[in-house]
């Protein structure tokens, strides 16, 4: 199973194995990773699963669709490497992915 590393803004990190097909958000929720709220449950409607993706992974991810980019406008302190973790579907290609949660989600 692909390993995903979740870091918080204090640099504490936790690496877990997440099943292919789940999203980075679901991996966090199912493993009690703090810092990802996912209030809307993954319907791309709230921006509380916002993460910063480690730069080198950015190009390996499918590009964000317009609705996701629009939603990221609403996120807390968005940056160039901001993504909504509910839109990142885990596959073998993403083994080793590192994401950082923002200081807060709202």
């Amino acid at each position: 199973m692909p390993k995903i590393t979740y870091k918080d803004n204090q640099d504490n990190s936790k690496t877990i194995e997440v099943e292919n097909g789940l999203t980075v958000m679901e991996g966090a929720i199912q493993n009690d990773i703090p810092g990802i709220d996912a209030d809307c449950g993954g319907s791309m409607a709230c921006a509380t699963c916002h993460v910063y993706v480690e730069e080198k992974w950015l190009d390996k991810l499918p590009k964000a669709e317009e609705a996701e980019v629009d939603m990221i406008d609403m996120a807390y302190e968005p940056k160039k490497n901001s993504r909504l973790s509910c839109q990142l579907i885990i596959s073998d290609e993403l083994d080793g992915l590192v994401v950082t949660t923002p200081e807060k989600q709202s």
Partner: protein
Amino acid sequence: MKKKDVVIIGAGPVGLFAIHQLGIKGLKAVVIDNLDKAGGQCIELYPDKPIYDIPAVPECTGEELTKNLLEQIKPFNTEFFYNERVDEVKQDKDNWIVKTNKNNEFTAPNIIIAGGVGSFEPRKLSVKDAEKYEGKSLFYSVKNKDEFKNKNISIFGGGDSALDWTLELSKFSKITLIHRRSDFRGAPHTLSEIQKLENEGKISIKTPCQLDSINGDKNIESISIKFDDGKIEKIKTDTILSFFGLIMKLGPITEWGLNMNKKTIDVNSENFETNKKGIFAAGDICSYPGKLKLILSGFHEVALASVECFKRARPNEKYRFEFTTSSKNIQNRLGKK
């Protein structure tokens, strides 16, 4: 203090269907919601997105679902209290006293919490001093546009609210529109109007940049914005309008002594009562083994909760299960002859 059979917190689809299930049993409910209209997440988060899993409705939008539910509960003439949040819940023997942030008070033997993920509140700016100016010269909505005349206004956001208010307020104030990227999200007509105003020098647009600091003492004097390349620019500003959408906050619900698990309230799956007798939770906010956050699950949950509500509201009457197709009582309550 108003006396009711049930106080429903939340006017989303589940809260609305609760009115129906209570109404056909002859119970009077009142509904309180922090938004300015019914529909909850359906209206606020995805009014135009189709929903495909409402039984017997192959496809409908959040807005249509809300409209149909409102139609379905019309016969019960229920009172709605919008733009109000329940702040306090207190026990008074077999009743609950519910108090809102606008000092409305209700008493009822039952409360149904159908609060979704909490009440919607504007997403606030996080820079230093933002709180200090809030409500004085920093606003998250426009209540009375006359208060925004002859000002230097900086508007933040890239969506409909930011664009619409830029157009409207530019008629009588100097507007700077600030967004973190160069693309705006709005109707084509709105976008071309904005472009026109900028070309004519009537408004100023700053992208891609974000708010860095608010400068001033008692009043806001200027703001500093930071561009993606690190450059900082100071803009003369006396009023800030920020439109970064809404977030959901659980708020005071956590203080009512209910057993909670993260952001959800524990209930039993027999009648969806919480650990407090007479307080029920249904829809996205409740949790029990096997819970699914589906609208249809919420409908089932309030149907069962309404039976227990009846027993508590009418302790001297016997509850009789009836079908809408055959019950004269129900048909009378629905205004069908």
